[in-house]
């Protein structure tokens, strides 16, 4: 399955090592592939370098050793083929929703009329049209994250990087977001690398779950949840396959937590 743009959008992570000043080794040889068009989740104990890995893929951090290959080229900084969704939303509080969503395009020099039209399209997809002229402080946490997501989608990147996007959203909205995300991705074919703490969330949304050990992190296991996503969400969450997968991952992680 190729993404909408026909380009190879697999993310190859090869032997990623990251040492922070002060000698803290966050990553020690992390290797995995995020196949194009699929949603890959990174999960692991706290401090296991999931966000570090994601930021290296995004080009926001530099690896000490190892490489990330995107479209055949190593990553050397942020690029237009990758878009990031932040855990704390990272919205400009002095700008309206419309401006925030169009900001990625604004930085690229897209003229105002065009970028506002694009922004409105994605605002509509997120059901935020009524709040186009509102400011972030007037929105709830869930709405703010929808703005962040709209912004990332508006730049039409092939690869979406999401850093615990639903962690700051309240529990009830969170489930809805997971379902909305899946629906969105069925329309907009993208490669997604997703970081979360929640095993249920990982199993529910992912095609592939990469389990990291505690720092210095390596890939401990890669799991493909064999789940039939055809049915209603409540059926999925009670299906045997789902529950087994969640418990399997929990067993794997438990070993690291108690170590």
């Amino acid at each position: 399955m190729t993404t909408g743009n026909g380009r190879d959008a697999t993310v190859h992570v090869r032997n990623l090592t990251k040492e922070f000043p002060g000698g803290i080794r966050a990553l020690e040889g992390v290797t995995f592939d995020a196949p194009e068009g699929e949603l890959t989740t990174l999960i692991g104990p706290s401090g296991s370098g999931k966000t570090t890995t994601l930021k290296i893929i995004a080009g926001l951090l530099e690896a000490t050793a190892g490489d990330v290959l995107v479209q055949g080229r190593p990553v050397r900084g942020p690029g237009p083929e990758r878009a990031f969704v932040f855990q704390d939303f990272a919205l400009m509080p002095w700008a309206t929703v419309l401006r925030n969503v169009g900001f990625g395009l604004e930085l690229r020099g897209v003229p105002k009329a065009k970028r506002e039209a694009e922004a409105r399209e994605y605002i509509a997809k997120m059901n935020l049209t009524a709040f186009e002229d509102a400011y972030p402080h007037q929105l709830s946490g869930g709405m703010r994250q929808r703005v962040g997501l709209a912004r990332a989608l508006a730049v039409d990147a092939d690869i979406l990087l999401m850093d615990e996007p639903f962690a700051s959203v309240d529990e009830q909205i969170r489930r809805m977001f997971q379902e909305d995300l899946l629906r969105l991705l069925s329309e907009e074919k993208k490669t997604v690398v997703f970081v979360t703490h929640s095993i249920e969330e990982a199993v529910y949304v992912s095609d592939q779950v990469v389990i990291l050990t505690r720092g210095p992190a390596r890939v401990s296991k890669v799991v493909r949840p064999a789940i039939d996503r055809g049915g209603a969400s409540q059926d999925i969450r009670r299906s045997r396959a789902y529950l087994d997968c969640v418990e399997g991952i929990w067993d794997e992680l438990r070993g690291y937590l108690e170590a």
Partner: protein
Amino acid sequence: MTIRGYRIPMALSLLVWFAIWEIVGRLDWVFLIPPFTDVINALFSVIPSARFIDAVTITFQAFAIGMGLALVIGIGVGVLMGRIPAVGSLMGMWVNIFESSPLTAIVPALMVLLGFGLPTMIVTVFLFSVWVIALDTQVGVQRVNPSLIEMGRSFGASRRDLHFKIIFFAALPELLAGIRLGLIRGVKGVVIGQLLIAVVGVGYLFELYSRNFLMPEFWALLIVVFAFAFAASETIAYFERKVAFYATTR
């Protein structure tokens, strides 16, 4: 404060104070304090006078140039100090020292080096106000949410975009606070400078009026200077309130 349920704005308390001033003046208790109404009358004779206009012109010149320099250099240095930790450590020590020092002590040295005219006044205004502007700018820049910067970088923002579209606005509340404090200190600087130089500007006028015991004129001039300082400060405070809506959700 409310009286019987009616909210009375605080500014009205000044009327009470003016009334007290009037009474004390009329009772002639303290020679220095003439009745408030006399002071108001003096305002009308002082302000149009040629002496006053000359004094204010030169004072304002010194103030404007000194403040302009302080803003440009203060904000520039503040941004550097905030973005580059090494610069922040190197210069921070000096900025902090001078921000709280009695800079008045330096004015005699300035008079010796630069004379009794405009240059000394400009440098005095500059020295009084630049430190707090740099310091508050530094704090504002340091407090910018790192996520906002990462967000900018992740969408490919150039350094220019990063500074002018993100950092500037994120640091604006602190920047404005620093400018307001800088303005107030600048006014103090120009007045102190002129009091010490004593032959130019409003400082000279203050000297003249007090020497000749023209108390209503003295207080009228004081009110004019106070009013200017207050107006400048409140103008910036107005802008601070305009950006306050996002200051807490950064």
